[in-house]
């Protein structure tokens, strides 16, 4: 065999290996999803969605869990959205290139890499203990807000960066101030991108269990929280709880709850992808 033949053979072999590896990724994904569907789909019905937790697997539902998840989503959005977008706007539109902005950038990239459980420790010490909020929805939402803040800031900056400078020039040239330009031109033009980022960040927050366990979200909360200071549980924690039970019936419940959680996560991601595509199609600068 000539060298050239060998090279061609290696080339082909790698191609096969590449397809194989890609397939592993996809097949594992498929196996996971199918496994979950087989285990849990039969368990999902109206009652499952509207029942309180119960010691009897067959009677237990996820009402409080998804209500808690919804609460957390809303509160986290209210807290993280303005904060993250403002910070993104500041860094992209206002900050001069200096030590501080450089430091902010490193800092944000670092925060994005801090494990979520560390945020849990932060939340427990600051929100739960020092601010005395206890294991409440508010503590949870504050903790998760800090967790997703870096993601929102980074995506906001990306979205703002995509707005062409000519739009800013146009606005300044008509006598608009910096803030008027940001508010009337930059933010509306980048809104789609910002929204996409926030939804992606929220889909991350929805799946988080570790930091909420640390701040003390409970296992058995048989009521829908009615104020931000109420105790709560969320889907991932309910799943964690059920997963740690040895009885088959609870594993089925866990699978069913996972389907709901995945439904929410995929829905959020789907919306984000849809928005992004729409955005890309709509605006051709």
């Amino acid at each position, binding site marked *: 065999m000539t060298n050239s033949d060998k*090279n*061609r053979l*290696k*080339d082909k072999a*790698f*191609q096969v*290996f*590449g397809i194989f590896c*890609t397939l*592993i*990724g*996809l097949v*594992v*994904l498929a196996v*996971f999803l199918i*496994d*979950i569907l087989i*285990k849990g789909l039969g368990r999902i019905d109206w009652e499952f969605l509207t029942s309180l937790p119960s010691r009897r697997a067959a009677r237990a539902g996820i009402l409080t869990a998804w209500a808690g998840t919804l609460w957390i989503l809303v509160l986290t959005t209210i807290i993280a959205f303005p904060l*993250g977008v*403002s*910070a993104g706007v*500041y860094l992209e539109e*206002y900050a001069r290139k200096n030590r501080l902005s450089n*430091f*902010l950038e*490193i800092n*944000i*990239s670092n*925060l*994005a*890499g*801090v494990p*979520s*459980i*560390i945020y849990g*420790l*932060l939340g427990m010490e*600051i929100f739960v*203990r020092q601010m005395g909020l206890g294991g409440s929805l508010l503590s949870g939402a504050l903790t998760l807000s800090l967790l997703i*803040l870096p993601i929102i*800031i980074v995506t906001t900056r990306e979205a703002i960066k995509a707005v062409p400078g000519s739009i800013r020039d146009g606005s300044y040239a008509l006598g608009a*101030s*910096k*803030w008027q330009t940001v508010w009337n031109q930059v933010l509306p033009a980048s809104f789609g991108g910002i929204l996409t980022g926030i939804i992606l960040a929220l889909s991350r927050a*929805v*799946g*988080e*269990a*570790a930091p909420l*366990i*640390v701040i003390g979200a409970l296992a058995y909360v048989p009521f829908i929280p009615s104020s931000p200071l109420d105790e709560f549980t969320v889907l*991932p924690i309910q*799943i*964690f709880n059920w*997963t740690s039970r040895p009885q088959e019936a609870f594993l089925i419940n866990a*699978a069913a709850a*996972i389907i709901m*959680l995945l439904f929410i996560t*995929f829905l959020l*991601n789907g919306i984000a992808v849809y928005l992004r595509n729409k955005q890309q199609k709509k605006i051709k600068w």
Partner: protein
Amino acid sequence: MKVSERIIEGLLWLSAVITILVTIGIIWVLLSQSIGFFQVVSLTEFLTEKEWTPLFADKKFGIMPLVAGTLLTTFIAIAVALPLGLTIAVYLNEYAPARMRQIVKPLLEILATIPTVVYGFFALTVVTPFLQQFIPGLAGFNALSAGMVMGIMIVPMISSLSEDAISAVPRSLREAAYGMGSTRLQTAFGVMVPAASSGIVVSVILAISRAVGETMIVAIAAGQQPRLTMNPLVPIETITTYIVQVSLGDVPHGSLEYKTIFAAGITLFVFTFALNNISFWIKKKYQEKYD
């Protein structure tokens, strides 16, 4: 500048600066709690003692078993994710038709959006029973399936970020390689991967950092037993699992036991902080080079 403009800018500035406060908050919380810990337990004991039993009568405060557990699961995860992820990245970039890349890449990225409790569930209820068919001694809680599932989770981190890095290599380099008679494989591994190496290294470091900090998968599937071992078949405990375990119970504020989770937390933070900074530094350097 109008006053209102200044106020607005001030508010925006404040929002940005809050991120610094968060970092300070994290460091302060970790330090202030673990200082109390280190007043009782010497740093030497913490680093050299081989057992971790802070909650028991015979208290030992060696972080090594937790670090070992963390490293073991991380190592398994990377051992799965690196070859898979890198091969996929190269395959998608160099071999796959554009259409396939457009479909496969986002499909794989779904893997990264699945909440980690769900992975924990898989590790415990699917992967472990499956592996037990081949590995008789495999315990129900073990580092192996937790690590493998974690590896699957971070495959898209490596494959997507590396693919981005490879596609960022100027097309002219690929053409140069082809123009010299390279096969696709030679082009990929002789030219493209080396040229994209910093981006690939960044993706791998980020993946390691992610694996080190991953919590729910190991908390559900790896066991809760601090054990200084590199045996992947038995239950172990990671730093993150320890924090979860203690948090699930109620260890009173201010007690030494309570402070142990911050001592564990700061260890974890130091690891990930170092990894993140290295990757940030490489990324910065790399960007400057290519502009």
